[in-house]
């Protein structure tokens, strides 16, 4: 028996940035515009076949706490795929509250720079699988630098160094967003995806820049990559999830069919 595996089928994650109960989107983390209702967007993506949903409180880090509790509670009532919540999670108590309201995972970036043990504390209590190390990557001449506060502040830490740190701290997954490509819709940063996936022993989801189905199909070829995060491409109806899933499946099956006739 040949053990076939859907390893080329990547998870598609919908990223919803939220500010004062509005779904928002910017370009390169700036110029944020209100574009809709986050709860109805989450429900629509779920019904269309999304694999996971990532809710981000876009201003939480700045004001020191996450405000997504009631939205999360509402989404968790109707949406039965994994829910990740990020933005402004400062301590174990914040994380516990979000898990209690229906989060399956929490994503941590900014707070982990001033309080590195936060990831370890949450992982010790809820397991590594419940902690996503979030990375906002901006290109430098020699690679990529990590940004915090939703792309507002620099850290001087390279993304590759950060991947190792997050792994050692006990994160169970990495979500790497290209700040340069975010909202631009001209394709993912494939080089970033390849370098991080090759370096990491953890599952990696890459986000930022999806401008159409072909961009996703291109990334699916990176075997070690675990998933792709889409925001604008879904919010502005550029990518139809049903069509995307069908094409991913088709692309996955192609080599097998060719093999049969060779």
């Amino acid at each position: 028996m040949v053990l076939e595996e859907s390893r080329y089928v990547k998870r598609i994650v919908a990223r919803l940035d939220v500010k004062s109960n509005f779904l928002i989107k910017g370009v390169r983390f700036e110029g944020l515009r209100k574009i809709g209702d986050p709860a109805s967007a989450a429900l629509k993506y779920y019904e269309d076949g999304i694999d996971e949903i990532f809710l981000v409180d876009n201003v939480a880090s700045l004001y020191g706490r996450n405000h997504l509790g009631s939205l999360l509670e509402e989404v968790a009532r109707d949406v039965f795929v994994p829910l990740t919540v990020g933005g402004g999670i400062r301590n174990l108590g914040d994380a516990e509250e979000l898990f209690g309201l229906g989060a399956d995972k929490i994503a941590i970036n900014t707070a982990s720079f001033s309080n590195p043990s936060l990831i370890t504390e949450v992982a010790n209590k809820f397991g590594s699988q419940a902690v996503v190390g979030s990375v906002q990557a901006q290109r430098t001449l020699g690679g990529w630098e990590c940004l915090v506060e939703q792309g507002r502040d620099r850290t001087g830490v390279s993304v590759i160094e950060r991947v190792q740190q997050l792994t050692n701290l006990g994160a169970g997954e990495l979500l790497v967003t290209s700040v340069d490509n975010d909202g631009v819709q001209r394709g993912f940063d494939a080089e970033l995806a390849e370098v991080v996936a090759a370096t990491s022993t953890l599952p990696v989801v890459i986000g930022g820049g999806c401008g159409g189905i072909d961009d996703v199909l291109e990334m699916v070829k990176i075997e070690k990559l675990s998933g792709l995060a889409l925001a604008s491409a879904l919010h502005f109806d550029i990518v139809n999830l049903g069509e995307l899933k069908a094409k991913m499946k088709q692309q996955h099956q192609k080599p097998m069919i060719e093999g049969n006739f060779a």
Partner: protein
Amino acid sequence: MSVIDHGIGNIGSITNALRVCGYDSTLIRDPDELNDASIVVLPGVGNFGGVMSAIQEAGLHEAIRGYVFEDRPLLGICVGMQVLFQGSTESPDSNGFGFFSGKLNHLSSLDSTKVTPSVGWKELIHVTTTDELSLKEAYFVHSYFAAGIDSADLISSYVWEGHLVPSHVGRGRVQGVQFHPEKSRLEGLRFLHGVLQDISK
């Protein structure tokens, strides 16, 4: 419907899913509350030893053993399934319930070059198939798998990096799933409903 609330689980997700399946859930935090339970769901995420300690600290360990040995229905989910086995290399000092023979090993013992945890949607391969217990694909997130299990207990498996890994086990009225039916879309909820019907027959 009763859900064991030992404090380390996605209780909210489980009760939301059960509500859609048509069950109102009661949370069980005290051994006496098991007396009136008709079906019990044992959730759990994270660490094997952490979940076992939490069960012990809540005084629920003996009560759950007694409940199962009275041939009453129980479904374990994720680490809630893992603790139904004898133990885990994740927490060598913690014993599991031992309802199923076998121990949990890290996936890297199968292939240390691959990424763990195993995360995502996987197709299930059924050993025994009834409509109620079949599910095409499910959402997994785990690093440890049940090894050395009794083949009679195996209901379905999935393929991780070329290796068959148990995804659903059952014996009598006790069943366990490594994946998350409560996070596997409507099909997952339908499966959850089917399993709960099956174990309470």
